[in-house]
Structures are given as C-alpha cells and as structure tokens.
C-alpha cells in the first residue's frame, strides 16, 4: 500500500470506504509527519491538531454508518492563511492582522466542511498574498520540499509546500497574479486557477477585487477536479461570482486529447521573456507528448507578456491601495518591506490610469478570446526558471516576476500549472494549460492526459 502521506484525496477516500484506513488514522499520521518535517519547511502558520482530530472523528463515525458525503469526506485540507476559518486567526502572515480571529468560515471553507473535508490548519503565504519570501514578518517563509534552501513559490507558499511534502493531500490557495500556479510550478504539483467567478471569494482577505481567484493545489489532476466540484458555485454575496451551471469538472478526465487543438504560446518564453533552457526543453517535451497522444499542436500569438504584466500591476496596485491605504498611512512599519514596497505604488496611480488599464484589459481579453475560437486549450510557460535559493535575494528578485501566469488573471480564463520535469539541479519545471471561460473541464482533461503519459506526478521530493 502507498504510504498514507502520499495518498491522493481520491485514494484516501477509497481507503476510507474500504475500511483499510480511517480518517483519524490518516490525520494522526499526518500530524506526526508534520511534527517531523515542518520545522524544516514552515508550511504551517497555525496547525489546528485538535480541530482536525475532532473533524476526523466525526467523519469516521459518519463513514462507518455508511453516510459518505462524497470523495472529500474525511480528507485533510491545508488552508492558506488569508481564508477565514471560524475561531482561528486569519493573519495574512502579517503583523497588521496578528490578533485577528475569524468569526465565520469563508464560503469555500463552508463548502469543504459540507463535503466532509478535515481542515488541518492555516498555511504560510507571502504577506497579504503579495510580494515574495520575506524574513521580516511574524512567521518564517515556507521552504521548498525538493530543496529547503529554495523557495516554494507563492504567494500560496505553505499550501504548495505542504501538498508537495505530504503534509496534506490537497490545499486551498488564492491567485491574483499567479499565486496558486506559482507554488504548483515550484513544488511540482498541480495548481488550478478556475475561471473568474466560478469560486466564491467571500471570507478570503482581498488583494485585488477584479483579479482575485480561489483555487486548489493538489498532487493529481483528478484531485483538482474533486476540489473544484466541492468549492465551485454561485454566491450572490460575492459581486464577482457568476451564476454558472458548470459542474462535474472531472467528467472529461479519461477522454484523452485526440482531436483537441492546442495553441502553443511560444513567444511568451522564447522572445517576450526568454526562459531557462531546461524550462524551454520541458515545454517542447509537453508539446511532443500531447501530439503523441493525438492532439494537434499549433503555434499561436497573444499580446505580449509586458502588456499583460503592466495591466496586472496597475490594476492590482490600485485595488490593493484602496484596501490597504488606511493601514499604510497609520502603521506602515507593521508591514514587511517587500509587501510595503508592492502596496505603495497604488498611491501614485491616478484614477485615469486605472480606468485606462481596465479599458485596455477588455481589448486583451478579446485578443485571447479570438485565439481560443481556433484552439481548444493554450499551452504555455508558467515559471521561466526553477525556483531560486531563499538566501539569494537578488536572484529571487530577478526570477520571481519571470512568469506567464498574470495574463490569465487579467483575462479571467481558467489556467492550470503542473510539473513538466525536473531540472538538472533536482527542482521542478512546469507547464501551464489555459482554456475557455467556464471550460475548466477541458483544461483538466488536457492536464490529465499529460499526467497519464508522463511519470512526474509519481515523483516525490527526497524528504522522507
């Protein structure tokens, strides 16, 4: 049998139903593993062992009586510390909110609890889901299980590190400029940013209202679909939520890619932002594998990464400033330097510049939609480099912005990042798939076909 800590959510669910493993046994095992490994990884800000064991006992009783709520029943989940979990602190990894206790669950947490999931605790993030790894915050930055000297991506850094290290099989993250897909890329797991409006953001501390998304981090594509099934759905109290009927996100996972048309956005990593050679080689291999599986891969062109990045930053800075201005005025010293530097630009952007970016944004959306009329899914880079050393601040500053994820926060299209290989230094390299609005199922279908055809999802970091 697979070690319990490497069980996927789907496998754990089957083991619970077959009574070869119980939710309490799994949670106890993961707590022991956390005790052994997390001092090296810092994935958790706040482990809720008591709450997790209580929830696991409840799940165990229900499953024992044959009242199985679904495939996440009894499954442990890590939660980024910008989501409200009732009675636990939501600190956003910041001194600013160090004493803030959540009164109610975020909607996505409510939905996970309804599905029977077990909340393990709150995971590390970049401060307020912005910036990068920092050492001047109340909690240390999470580290990459493939090599703890390197960063695990972010901002959902603890969620990524924890899934990768087998501290929990699935986690929740948020994504405003790539913050679910970045840790997925750095840690060699799966991170899915759903279509904008598919998952409620109520109860999640906002960074940028028109760019924020909630999404799962998992070790397999099937688990990402299960998580999305649980958390998707219209929320009339989230102004960005859409009343869509999109459901059953895993329904196409076994279909393969035969007859699908895949647009390879080469200029992102070849000319706009030339990628590390091992990343480029990994992307070419993804293209080859998908063609071998029967897809048609053709080169397509989108607006440049520079344009997307400029728009993402103007909108993000402006919207984040509207949230943080009172604290930045009164207590700027309570922020870490990196976050403060990333939030302050909003003070210098005019209303006209913000609206100008939103007007150009609609044109970029139209340009991506034009391409997606001719192809079913886009294939492109996620990170342009393997993750850098945490103690190499200049290299982290250089490589962190070298990514192709922000374009799909600007447009709102569904986007998934996953492992596409290992670098010569033993660190994951990644690929990103992007689909049409509310066609998350086809994105997951392509990712599942790639996963089946390659060994990467079976590789685990060398941490025991």
């Amino acid at each position: 049998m697979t070690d319990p800590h490497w069980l996927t959510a789907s496998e754990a669910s089957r083991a619970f139903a077959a009574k070869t493993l119980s939710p309490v046994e799994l949670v106890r095992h993961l707590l022991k593993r956390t005790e052994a490994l997390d001092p090296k990884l810092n994935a958790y800000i706040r482990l809720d062992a008591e709450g997790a064991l209580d929830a696991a006992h409840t799940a165990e009783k229900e499953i024992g009586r044959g009242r199985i709520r679904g495939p996440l029943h009894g499954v442990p989940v890590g939660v980024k510390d910008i989501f409200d979990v009732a009675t636990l602190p939501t600190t956003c990894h910041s001194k600013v909110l160090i004493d803030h206790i959540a009164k109610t669950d975020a909607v996505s947490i409510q939905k996970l609890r309804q599905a029977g999931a077990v909340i393990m605790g709150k995971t590390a993030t970049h401060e307020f889901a912005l910036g990068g790894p920092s050492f001047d915050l109340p909690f240390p930055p999470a580290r990459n299980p493939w090599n703890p000297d390197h960063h695990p991506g972010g901002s959902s850094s603890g969620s990524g590190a924890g899934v990768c290290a087998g501290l929990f099989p699935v986690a929740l993250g948020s994504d405003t400029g790539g913050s679910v897909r970045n840790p997925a890329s750095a840690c060699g797991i799966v991170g899915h940013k759903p279509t904008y409006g598919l998952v409620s953001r109520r109860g999640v501390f906002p960074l940028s209202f028109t760019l924020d998304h909630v999404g799962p981090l998992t070790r397999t594509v099937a688990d990402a679909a299960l998580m999305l099934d649980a958390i998707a759905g219209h929320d009339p109290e989230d102004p960005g939520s859409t009343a869509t009927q999109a459901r059953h996100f895993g329904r196409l996972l076994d279909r393969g890619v035969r007859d699908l048309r895949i647009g390879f956005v080469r200029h992102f990593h070849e000319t706009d932002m030339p990628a590390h050679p091992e990343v480029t080689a990994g992307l070419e291999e993804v293209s080859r594998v998908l063609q071998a599986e029967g897809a048609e891969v053709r080169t397509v062109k989108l607006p440049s990464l520079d344009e997307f990045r400029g728009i993402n930053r103007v909108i993000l800075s402006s919207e984040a400033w509207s949230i943080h201005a009172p604290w930045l005025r009164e207590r700027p010293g309570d922020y870490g330097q990196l976050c403060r530097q990333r939030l302050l630009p909003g003070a210098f952007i005019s209303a006209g510049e913000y609206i100008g970016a939103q007007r150009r944004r609609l044109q970029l959306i139209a340009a991506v939609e034009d391409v997606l009329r001719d192809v079913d899914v886009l294939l492109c880079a996620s990170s342009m480099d393997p993750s850098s050393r945490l103690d190499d601040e200049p290299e982290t500053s250089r490589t962190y912005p070298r990514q192709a994820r922000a374009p799909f926060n600007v447009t709102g299209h569904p986007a998934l990042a996953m492992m596409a290989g290992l670098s010569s230094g033993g660190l994951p390299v990644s690929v990103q798939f992007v689909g049409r609005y509310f066609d998350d199922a086809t994105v997951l279908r392509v990712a599942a076909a790639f996963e089946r055809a390659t060994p990467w999802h079976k590789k685990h970091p060398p941490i025991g």
Partner: protein
Amino acid sequence: MDQTLLIALAKAAGLEKALAEFPADVATAAAQAMANAGAVKVPDDPRAEPWPPMRPGVGL
C-alpha cells in the same frame, strides 16, 4: 520622479508617516507606479469600455 512632486503626491495620499520612516520605499513605489502605468497602451478609441463591461448582463 522629481523629489518635490514625489513628496507632494505622497503627502496628498496621506503617507507622511511612510515618507518619514521609509523614504526609500516610497520613492521606489512611485518609480514602479510610473513604469507600470507607462507600460499600458490605453485605447485610442473613446468608445473602448473598461472591464468589467458597463453593460448589464454582459460579463464572462
């Protein structure tokens, strides 16, 4: 950005404290804001609308 203008804009935004305690961060932020805004090609067409669209019922 001109230092006098930087200070005036920062004060107008209520950032006196940040200006006093973290002047380098404020200067870096102002430079970033200018660079980011300058990278946006604002549409020439006066009819080009922003996202989200200002038409009821039209969204993603």
